[in-house]
């Protein structure tokens, strides 16, 4: 599918165009960048190129406001990291900062203008209980209080339920590995621990090595089920690769990815850096993933990701976008959670119950056989309503989880409730018919 390159991508590929933009191009650029969480990045591209003078005054205010927002977040995150570090110092266990917090603490160019919501840390699994207990004493409270959610996180996920500070509202994600425990990829996290680098002037704060940062970011991006920040994440990867600056980077990256059994996300990353951002790390060509790289992203996935990497703005979407994001959503869950365990399990349970009913003569087919027309009709109505309700609930539920608050003009939750009511009603009808 031919895609006209959106303005934001043109600028990310070639910031030299910035001083030539007219007012209406700026209008589009600011909107596309804001929707893709890349407005802060645009501010830095403008500053780096020395283009501020050429930016219309009105636009300058928006860029500078975004930067003020970023600076405020930076201060509070750095403060919060100090605080967490102090709270956990007596445990004498390394706290590895991940993603945004790590980039900030390292002062990498990727952190500039990058807005993020949660602080992510990685800790040793055997230290989780002590860490959680110490944080809870200092006012960090678990956000998911019901038993099911707690079990979901603790048994299946790569992190415990996020903690939230009860007065400041900061959210802290505590990971003990980098991918869900149920996912098909199970990289050896100890290798990442071993290569992590303590920060100078810090007691217990470390970060991943540069190479591992790239691999971690790529792994997350291509395991993600919600790709609303996909382009921002790809820009992160470019800046991380540029940060390496070494000609050996590609060699290191390839070997390390193999070692961690994470070659495919890295090769996907290199492929999309090249196709979307027209960026190729030094020496990353035919010897590495290059040459074969077109084959590394399966044919059916490639166009989906290409869509997902377009700016998250209505000027860049088409009829295919919602389909692509839905399919990627399913794919993300497929990688994270064993649907293939969950669905057979549910189906088996349902069938087992039907068998049971038949034995007791309560299954609706037995009623049909009795030839009671009224009951037959009621039974059929009940079945139709029940199935429709089930489908509606599924539709609304999936829609809501994938971020659509509104479906066909109704709130998703309203539709879900209607679906559930239909199922309840169908049960009543079927009970009556028997």
């Amino acid at each position, binding site marked *: 599918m031919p895609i006209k390159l959106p303005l934001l991508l043109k600028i990310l590929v070639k910031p030299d165009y910035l001083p030539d933009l007219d007012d209406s191009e700026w209008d589009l650029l*600011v909107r596309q960048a804001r929707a893709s969480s890349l407005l802060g990045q645009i501010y830095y591209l403008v500053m780096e190129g020395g283009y501020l003078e050429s930016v219309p005054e009105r636009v300058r205010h928006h860029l500078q406001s975004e930067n003020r927002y970023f600076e405020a977040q930076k201060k509070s995150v750095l403060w919060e990291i100090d605080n967490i570090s102090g709270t956990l110092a007596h445990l004498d266990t390394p706290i590895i900062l991940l993603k945004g917090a790590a980039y900030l603490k390292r002062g990498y160019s990727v952190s500039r203008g990058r807005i993020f919501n949660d602080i992510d840390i990685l800790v040793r699994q055997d230290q989780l209980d002590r860490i959680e207990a110490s944080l809870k004493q200092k006012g960090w409270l678990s956000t998911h209080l019901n038993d099911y959610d707690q079990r979901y996180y603790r048994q299946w996920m790569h992190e415990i339920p996020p903690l939230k500070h009860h007065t400041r509202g900061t959210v802290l994600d505590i990971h003990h590995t980098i991918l869900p425990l149920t996912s098909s990829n199970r990289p050896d996290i100890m290798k990442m621990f071993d290569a992590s680098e303590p920060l100078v002037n810090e007691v217990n704060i470390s970060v991943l090595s540069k190479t591992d940062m790239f691999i971690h970011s790529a792994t997350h991006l291509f395991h993600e089920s919600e790709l609303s920040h996909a382009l921002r994440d790809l820009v992160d990867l470019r800046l991380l690769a540029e940060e390496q600056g070494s000609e050996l980077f590609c060699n290191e990256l390839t070997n390390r990815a193999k070692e961690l059994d994470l070659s495919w996300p890295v090769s996907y990353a290199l492929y999309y850096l090249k196709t979307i951002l027209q960026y190729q790390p030094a020496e990353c060509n035919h010897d590495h993933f290059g040459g074969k790289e077109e084959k590394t992203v399966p044919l059916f996935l490639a166009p989906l990701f290409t869509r997902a990497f377009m700016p998250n703005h209505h000027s860049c979407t088409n009829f295919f976008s919602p389909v692509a994001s839905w399919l990627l959503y399913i794919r993300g869950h497929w990688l994270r959670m064993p649907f293939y365990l969950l669905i057979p399990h549910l189906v088996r349970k349902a069938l087992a119950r039907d068998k049971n009913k038949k034995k007791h003569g309560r299954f609706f087919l037995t009623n049909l056989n009795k030839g009671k027309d009224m009951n037959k009709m009621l039974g059929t109505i009940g079945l139709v309503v029940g199935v429709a309700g089930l489908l509606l609930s599924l539709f609304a539920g999936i829609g809501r989880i994938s971020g659509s608050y509104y479906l066909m003009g*109704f709130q998703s939750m309203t539709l879900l409730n209607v679906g559930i009511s239909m199922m309840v009603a169908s049960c009543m009808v079927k009970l009556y018919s028997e």
Partner: protein
Amino acid sequence: MKLADISKTDLSNRLKNEGIRLRIGPFVILLNTRIEALSSALKLLYGESELAIDGGFSDFHISLDAPAGLRGYYRPQVLFYFDGQVPFKPLPITHAFPLFEWGLNWCIAKYVHQYLILHAAVLEKNNRSIIMPGPPGSGKSTLCAALALRGWRLLSDEMALVGLEDLSLTPVTRPVALKNESIDIIQRFESDAVLGPLSYDTSKGTVAHLQPPVDSMSRYLEKSGVSYIVMPRYSPESSNEVREMQQSSMLKELIRNSFNYNILREEGFRTACRLVDACGCFTLDFNNLDDALTSMDRVIHNSVNE
């Protein structure tokens, strides 16, 4: 060209298609809607606003529309779109105008940080400006409406935009939001007051907006210096009294009533300190509008203690 200069049908056509670029204070807002009632409310309440020429940079892309599909027919609702995103839950379609106003407040509070933004009314008379911060229920909007109707220049009813460098006040003149009893009070106070449509049962009760004075609207680019900060406090039992307020207490009030203090941090703190230093700080207790107006005149004539 002003909004009022466009004919009713022309306006609703433009709102449905390319949109209008409305100048509101220092901002240009590209606005789209298919809702006729909103179109006429805009024509009434923003009639004196200038239109920017088509194309060019708009600060905020806003549209308000009914949700698509079946939901549009059953108890119709209105959604606020910020450049395609929906930041709020829908409201009944009769609340379209208040939703536009609240949505615009949200846009400014979220994306504009070149000013210290205070939740306050701003008015000016004889080149002396007053910032009136006040929590809901303090009578701020009612007093603001009364002052605007008695010849004060209205710079803002809701947000004071304070320049970080020069402490100048940038007008963002918009209709004054009146709630519940205030609507009747203002209608009794000035029978010529032009009010927009009533919206019942909003989260703030019944809401109506007062058309801003023509003169204030036409001076939308004219910044002003600041002289006084007055905290109004309405209570039916209180007497009318203007009292000087400690600078430190006023500083706390400003910070509490600021939308973006947490983002401006040190810069915001310094600006608020300088603002308090540069201004006379007062509290104004009042139980009726006429006496409150007299008190406000005494404030700007430096005759509070006489």
